[in-house]
């Protein structure tokens, strides 16, 4: 039995990023993964015979540049099929609106001149604000206490950059920071299709509707991401997102990490003050002086460590961590290409007729019910890489919102969500129903079961202002160091949140280096 310095739990983007960095610095690193393939949210899961296994994530929006560069992902198989995917906001009548370039640099379709000008201004401002905040993503969140070694220089630089935008812009940032997406869009724009596409972009993966207070901040965070150096650009890897997950796994292995799949961790072992190792579900015990958990903090604390090894107050706060997921995932195997009334099938297709359509889809989900007309983001990866399906056939992948995270009758809710989604699709692509060879609807509770994300939440813990920065995942745990010596948290549930970015894992590894062994 070889011994390891560090065991990383979970081979998702964050676990792999941390493993890579630790292994590159000479640590003997073992990564334990419950699933059959590494990659986490970017690992394919069997869906229909002959069709490529589908990952949870289908587009790249915030892959960490430090991670991509240091892990040398291109060398391990990452190619962009498109590193700047256009969006088509679908209309049920065929009057689509096309947004090209990052965050809709150019608009094609029926938009008034007034709206074009207004959008150009708002877009630039959103990107500027997001850019100012972007460096925060790569930092360990500062602590609120005195004399705790906060990186005052870095923080001052961010503050200075914000101030350098000028008094008007600085004030505007302060004004919109904690407002809601609906009001922000409504102040400036009038084209429903544009507002709908933006409202869905803003609320993808968060448990907030466009009218929910504080919904602008998570959007700014999303827009702080980049693909291949272009801020807010969306990327689709050749072969789909599974390629990205696989490339990260190969890179980690090349750096010396060992990845062991089909190894579910059941318990972190501690002598009270220090981690000793862990126990797998099959009873096997492994020892290591350092354990890095890339599982959601709620899971790590309550299931893997367990209440009795934690303080009672911290346990209560962990139990109260909010982890509602409203994003469901739809996979369709299609016998032929669908026709969305002429829309370019290689685009990211958005069905959200207006900002109100997004809010209306959220309303029933708040009360545990499924919406009549869900909104969705669609990708058809086979348009870019036909090898993912039998010749001439296609895969449609859609993130569908909003699904209730804990419906009273989960199976009935899944059926209702699927039926409603297919109805919406049929409205926008007449005849698509007849092409369906197989349909799979993954509800938040299914996602929780399969990927381990609590509540099926995209960010492994809601990304909302009260769970951000020094409050993420919990006060006192925001600097990646766990509550027990030798335990580190490196999950999307930590700062800065989710997406196939590897940022939290990378930040955690940096924090470990700073802390010394």
């Amino acid at each position: 039995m070889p011994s390891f310095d560090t065991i990383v739990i979970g081979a998702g983007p964050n676990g792999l990023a941390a493993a890579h960095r630790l292994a590159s610095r000479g640590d003997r690193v073992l990564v334990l993964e419950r699933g059959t393939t590494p990659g986490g949210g970017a690992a394919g899961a069997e869906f229909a015979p002959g069709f490529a296994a589908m990952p949870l994530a289908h587009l790249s929006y915030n892959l960490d540049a430090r991670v991509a560069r240091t892990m040398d992902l291109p060398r391990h198989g990452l190619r962009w099929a498109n590193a700047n995917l256009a969006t088509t906001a679908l209309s049920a009548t065929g009057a689509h609106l096309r947004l090209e370039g990052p965050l809709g640099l150019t608009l094609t379709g029926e938009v008034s001149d007034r709206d074009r000008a207004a959008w150009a201004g708002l877009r630039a401002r959103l990107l500027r604000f997001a850019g100012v905040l972007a460096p925060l993503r790569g930092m360990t969140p500062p602590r609120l206490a005195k004399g705790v070694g906060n990186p005052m220089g870095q923080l001052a630089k961010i503050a200075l950059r914000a101030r350098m935008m000028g008094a008007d812009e600085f004030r505007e940032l302060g004004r919109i920071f904690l407002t809601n997406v609906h009001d922000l869009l409504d102040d400036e724009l009038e084209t429903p299709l544009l507002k709908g596409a933006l409202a869905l972009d803003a609320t993808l993966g968060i448990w907030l509707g466009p009218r929910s207070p504080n919904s602008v901040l998570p959007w700014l965070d999303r827009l702080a991401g980049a693909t291949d150096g272009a801020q807010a650009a969306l990327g689709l890897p050749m072969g789909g997102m599974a390629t990205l997950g696989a490339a990260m796994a190969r890179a980690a292995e090349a750096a010396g990490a060992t990845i062991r799949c089909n190894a579910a961790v059941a318990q972190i072992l501690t002598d009270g003050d220090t981690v000793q190792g862990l126990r797998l579900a099959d009873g096997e015990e492994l020892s290591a002086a350092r354990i890095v958990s890339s599982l959601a903090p709620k899971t790590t604390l309550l299931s893997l460590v367990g209440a009795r090894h934690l303080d009672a107050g911290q346990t209560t706060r962990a139990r109260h961590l909010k982890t509602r997921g409203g994003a469901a995932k739809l996979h369709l195997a299609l016998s032929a290409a669908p026709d969305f009334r002429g829309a370019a099938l290689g685009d990211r297709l958005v069905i959200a007729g207006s900002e109100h359509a997004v809010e209306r889809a959220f309303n029933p989900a708040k009360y545990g019910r499924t919406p009549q007309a869900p909104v969705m983001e669609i990708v058809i990866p086979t348009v870019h890489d036909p090898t993912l399906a039998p010749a001439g056939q296609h895969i449609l992948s859609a993130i569908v919102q909003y699904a209730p995270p804990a419906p009273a009758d989960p199976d009935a809710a899944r059926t209702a969500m699927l039926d409603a989604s297919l109805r919406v699709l049929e409205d926008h692509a007449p005849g698509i129903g007849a092409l369906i060879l197989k349909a799979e609807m993954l509800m938040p509770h299914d996602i929780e079961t399969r990927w381990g994300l609590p509540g099926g939440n995209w960010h492994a813990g809601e990304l909302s202002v009260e769970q951000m920065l020094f409050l993420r995942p919990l006060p006192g745990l925001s600097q990646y160091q766990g509550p027990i010596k030798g335990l580190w948290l490196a999950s999307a549930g930590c700062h800065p949140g989710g997406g196939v970015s590897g940022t939290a894992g990378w930040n955690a590894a940096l924090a470990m280096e700073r802390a010394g062994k």
Partner: protein
Amino acid sequence: MTDLRHYQTPLRQTPFHPRTSAANRLHAWAPWAGYATVQTYDDLAMEHSAIRNAATLYDLCPMIKYRIEGTDAAACLNRLTVRDADRLAVGGVHYTVWCDDAGHLIDDGTLFRLAPDRYRLCCQERHLPWLLDSAFGFDVRITDETGEIAALALQGPTSAVVLRAAGFDIDTLKPFRMAEFPFAGGHLTISRTGFTGDLGYELWTTPDLALPLWDSLTDAGALYGLRPVGSEALNIARLEAGFIIAGQDFTPAPHCLREDRLRSPLEMGLGWLIDWDKGQFTGRRALLRQRERGPHWAFVGLEIEGNVAAEGAILYHNRKTEIGVITGACWSPTLKTSIALAQVKARHAKGGNLWAEIYALRELHYARMMMPARVVARPFFNPTRKRQTPPGKL
């Protein structure tokens, strides 16, 4: 008439009320945990004297009592409190404290092990939400059983004789142990515990047996100087015994508004309670850090020159530098000296050149006195009869 809101309801009466009110010549009632309790029945000096020279009854019903039961009861209490609840034998009692995550005291109390998987925790403050939060992940049920139990303290040198006269054989009952007796068709638990630092017992039964219990003890005690005592007499006795009270000698963490008023067990002289080897308990990691760094505060017993009670006095070093405060004080009738409990800055824990600034109100004029204060060991009063088994036959 509309129903009264909870804060409008009059204080509740304990099951002993018919007897305590009949004996309460002064009608001096005070609220305690929502109940009316007697401050002094008729003469403070006589009541305190009975605690030290005869036998006394004190109505304990308002004390908060929690039942903690289930297969994880010991494990849950080990995580909640600083001592090892598992090492407490069935039929045993121990004094313990519990803290929040930061190691700050929430409360102190006595823990009774009634059965392998059933305990009773008695304390000053109500904390059901904290206890329930602490129970998450453990197979336990926690119930506030304050109203289900009638409790009476029987304290004083003749208390054992009174119990024998009442028909209870308590000769073999050791300090911090309890025993079960049949009583009036029901049950009575007698524990050799108390808050006076003297020979004494606490009696636990169901509310329906409260009055028969009172009457049988009063009958049995007639020849042994038995009398009821109020909280004021008990307070003098507990000061002589050096016992602390949550809310008086320290501010319980949940009530603390000012960060610098929070106190840890290490700062309250309770470090000896902590079992560092039993594994995790809430606050352990914070207390380990505090132990390493050294606590900022210490808790001490003081003897003060003169005969004026130094309640609330500010303490100075070298008459000039403020270094602490007296949290409880009295003229001790037993020791014939002025005693006090005090929080002091840790570096003055051993004393030396300490002074208490006392203001004595004398016919509407304050006399300000700077009195030398000497750090002494607690308990101030520690009679051997408290420990003797079988207890002496007076």
